[in-house]
């Protein structure tokens, strides 16, 4: 039978019918559908047992405990730690993004050297360390020819770095400017053994002046935990929170009461309140300068005067005084909304309320928190470090009043972006050798002659000593939860190695050993681990079991050490002299008529961390739009300057300017413009680069009379519509 057309078609028909009785069609369709579920460019999940590693966060100075969840050996999610007194299970948006930052595109992959054309090229660690050694050798023994800027206030790294400098006869060791500097200028004369802390947990009234307590100020997550505990869900608050500050920022929004005061005028209001407290007969028996304080306040800060300067009614001021007087355990928290740049006047004025209300070291008030012992030989004492004013130092150099160091070591800090009047300040690095110890390619690293990448905090040993704004002493360790992903080396090890080659003896061979010694040194103090009893509970009668067992073993695995011992304070000074000299002038500044309320939020990163990828969706449509960011002002202020919502506006300060769009926000005081720090990055990665403008550029540094401190929290600007 020949295969003609007809029989072929019949054959095909038979085949088609036959196929219907096989799985070919159905299986192919089904499998194709499954095939479309797994495109090769979409990552598949990797399985592995779930485990946790307890560590301490280093992304901002608040020192929260983090529980890093791992799947197999991969860190996947950062969670809070209920056993850590500084976070108690909570977490901030920056800490929540901690694990993903391991793989930030801005990570520095290995040591880099700046080339003649300004680009960075990867080099070996041998070459990088040899270059550092060479530069330090040149500077050795020439006094202050080497300077160091540390962006980490709480790490024992500061001992290693300051020890190195001391042995090279330099005392030019600086922290990035913060409020402990202001406190040191105000109270350093009598408070040498520690810092002042705020016992929020035991207070029944918390009044924050300026300090953005519930977002970024001090021990932010602990503050929020204290606030949360005092506001049980669905019940009446047990502790009232009052925010005195320039805007309804996070703290102003959620506090039980917001009192609007322009930045820089918190101190005036505080003394206005002090006036009422003094009138009611309150005294500070232990203050040596009480009488001069009293007469200064009573003569100058009369209700009429305070009302005129702050714009609040006399009744409002009196009401705040009544609130404080009626409370059993009130605590007043001084600060600036950006945790930097406030003056001695503001700090001492607000702090004096605490001294008036109750003696130092009373539960629910302020406590002296002793410094922890230092272990690195010749390391600078913490009280000395706190008093070093980086901004004045930089100003003196740029003004030619002091010699420029030939070598700058910058550790986990980003001064090129994050100093006030940043553009002008960063000129200090011209014609010097700048070495940056940084995890990320920030603006300072981008400018550095040598980059010595540090491991990310999830890859290294580090520690956190009592952070600024804490209410109790604490010590906890940061430990590696993953092997370094890149060719990085702990800065401590690099410095110790270089010191040895310089013939200097810091007493340790590795940074891990330094931490071990630090932990051992804690035994000098009568401390305990916070597994069962929290430090603030001790103040109301709980008795902890003293720390026992192998201290390093416990602490290196996440235990938190604390002590309830507080140094005896026989006498205090209210800084009456500084108050009278540093009082802000009454005349208005017509050249820069608008007060600038800078904002820092953990949602925008921190001083040394640009906004993480996961925090970007937190920004609303009127915070960042494409590459443009927004500044906020109320409708009256906007109208006065001919501005409308969404207009482009130029902010001009004496040292620089920047451009933003206008967001009308009625939670900002009159004649105040609120603007976020942390934008306008030029290095970093595509997630943060080029977004918004750098408000640090328009901050204005002035020298406060009396204290000689550089101050910029009360910066002023000129605003105008930009075209």
């Amino acid at each position, binding site marked *: 039978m020949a295969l003609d057309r007809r029989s072929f078609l019949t054959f095909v028909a038979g085949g088609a019918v036959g196929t219907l009785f096989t799985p070919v069609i159905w299986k192919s369709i089904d499998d194709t559908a499954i095939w479309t*579920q797994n*495109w090769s460019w*979409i*990552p*598949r*999940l*990797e399985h*592995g047992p779930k485990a946790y590693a307890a560590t301490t966060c280093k992304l901002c100075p608040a020192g929260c405990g983090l529980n890093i969840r791992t*799947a197999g050996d*991969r*860190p*996947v*999610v*950062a*969670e809070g730690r209920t056993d850590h007194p500084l*976070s108690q299970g*909570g*977490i*901030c*948006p920056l800490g*929540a*993004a901690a*694990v*993903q930052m*391991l*793989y930030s*595109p801005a990570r520095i992959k290995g040591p880099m050297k700046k080339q003649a054309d300004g680009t960075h090229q990867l080099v070996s660690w041998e070459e990088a360390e040899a270059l550092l050694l060479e530069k330090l050798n040149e500077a050795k023994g020439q006094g202050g020819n080497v300077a160091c800027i540390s962006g980490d206030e709480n790490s024992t790294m500061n001992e290693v770095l300051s020890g190195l400098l001391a042995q090279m006869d330099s005392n030019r060791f600086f922290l990035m400017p913060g409020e402990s500097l202001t406190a040191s200028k105000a109270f350093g004369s009598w408070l040498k053994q520690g810092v002042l802390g705020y016992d929020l947990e035991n207070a029944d009234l918390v009044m924050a002046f300026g300090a953005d307590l*519930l*977002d970024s100020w001090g021990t932010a*997550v602990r503050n*929020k*935990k204290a*606030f*949360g*505990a005092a506001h049980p*869900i*669905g019940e009446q608050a047990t502790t009232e929170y009052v925010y005195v500050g320039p805007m309804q920022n*996070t703290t102003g*929004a*959620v506090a039980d009461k917001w009192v*609007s005061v322009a930045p820089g005028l918190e101190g005036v209001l505080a003394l206005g309140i002090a006036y009422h407290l003094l009138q009611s007969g309150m005294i500070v028996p232990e203050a040596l300068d009480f009488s001069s304080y009293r007469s200064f306040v009573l003569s100058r800060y009369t209700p009429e005067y305070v009302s005129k300067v702050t714009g609040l009614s006399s009744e409002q001021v009196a009401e705040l005084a009544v609130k404080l007087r009626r409370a059993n355990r009130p605590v007043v928290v001084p600060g600036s909304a950006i945790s930097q740049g406030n003056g001695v006047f503001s700090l001492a004025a607000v702090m004096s309320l605490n001294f008036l209300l109750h003696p130092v070291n009373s539960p629910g008030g302020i406590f002296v928190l002793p410094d922890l012992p230092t272990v690195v030989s010749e390391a600078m004492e913490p009280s000395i470090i706190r008093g070093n004013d980086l901004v004045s130092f930089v100003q003196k150099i740029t003004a030619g009043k002091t010699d420029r160091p030939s070598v700058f070591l910058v550790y986990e800090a980003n001064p090129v972006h994050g100093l006030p009047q940043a553009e002008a300040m960063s000129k200090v690095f011209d014609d010097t050798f700048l070495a940056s110890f940084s995890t990320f390619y920030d603006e300072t690293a981008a400018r550095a002659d040598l980059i010595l990448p540090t491991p990310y905090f999830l890859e290294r040993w580090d520690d956190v000593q009592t952070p600024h704004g804490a209410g109790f002493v604490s010590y906890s360790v940061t430990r590696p939860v993953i092997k370094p*992903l890149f060719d990085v080396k702990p800065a401590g090890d690099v410095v110790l190695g270089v010191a040895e080659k310089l013939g200097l003896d810091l007493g340790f061979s590795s940074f891990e050993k330094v931490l071990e010694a630090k932990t051992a040194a804690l035994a000098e103090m009568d401390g305990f681990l916070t597994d069962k009893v929290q430090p603030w509970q001790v103040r109301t009668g709980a008795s902890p079991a003293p720390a026992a067992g192998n201290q390093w073993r416990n602490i290196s695995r996440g235990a938190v050490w604390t002590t309830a011992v507080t140094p005896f304070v026989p006498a205090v000074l209210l800084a009456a002299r500084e108050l009278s000299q540093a009082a802000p002038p009454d005349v208005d500044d017509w050249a820069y008529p608008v007060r600038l309320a800078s904002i820092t939020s*953990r*949602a925008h990163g921190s001083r040394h961390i640009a906004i993480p*990828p*996961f*925090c*970007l*969706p*937190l920004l*609303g*449509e009127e915070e*960042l739009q*494409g590459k443009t960011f927004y500044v906020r002002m*109320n*409708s009256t202020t906007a109208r006065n300057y001919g501005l409308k919502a969404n207009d482009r506006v130029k902010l001009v300060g004496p040292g620089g300017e920047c451009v933003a769009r206008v967001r009308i926000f*009625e*939670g900002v005081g009159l004649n105040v413009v609120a603007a976020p720090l942390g934008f306008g990055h030029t290095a970093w*990665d595509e*997630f943060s680069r080029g977004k918004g403008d750098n408000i640090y550029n328009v901050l204005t540094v002035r020298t406060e009379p009396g204290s000689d401190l550089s101050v910029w929290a009360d910066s002023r600007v000129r605003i105008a519509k930009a075209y």
Partner: protein
Amino acid sequence: MVLYLKEFKIKWGMVIDLDKCTGCGACMVACQAENNIAPVVDASDKRRSMTWLLVYQLSNQKLYPDHDVAYLPRPCQQCGHPNCVPVCPVIATDKNEEGGIVSQVNARCIGCRYCIAACPYHARYFNWHDPVWPEGMEKTLTPDVSTRPRGVVEKCLFCHHRYMQARDKARVEGRDPNALAEGDYIPACVEVCPTGAIAFGDLMNPNHKVHQLSKSPHAFRLLERLGTDPQVYYLSRREWVRRQGDNILEHETVEGV
């Protein structure tokens, strides 16, 4: 489909205290990490950013100095009568599991986006683009939530995988997986909240805190008058906040004031 009218013995629910929420956004970040949501370079392009949980800022609309703000975190409301379910042509989303969580199965979704149009809470998101993680960051994906390709809709599931894990833990420990204690199962956002503004539990169980809280005179739900019967409650002592939970006319008062 009448399945979604099924009554449940367990209804997982949230009560969010808006007087405690600082709007910090830790919950939003924790949500992204927990649910394998890819970061986007320009998150101000709201077609690209996925915010299963989104914190809104509310204003009392008054001028300075009488102004007040509140923050309102908006997860999926897990409605008792969800609008998204009946419009789904392929049953990719459904409300049929004990616990009352509205499901969303990305492998089944055909991307028609009817549910997005139907949801009055804007709680659903469409993958206009394939998710892209910066190089290496895909190593931080948890094994608990599948990645979604472009072309499908996704939304908050109250960290449903944590519910499954809590049930498994109960089973292995010999407890009844249908009688979880308060705290056995907690979504990531609730766990990380630094002020403890979110309570979570079984709304039907009188031993769970949310049961009482949801009956508070200060409690309200979003757009309650639509009849969606959400399993997410909000608390505020401020009347203006409660009024913003629905389209309240000027002459009307909010219930329970």
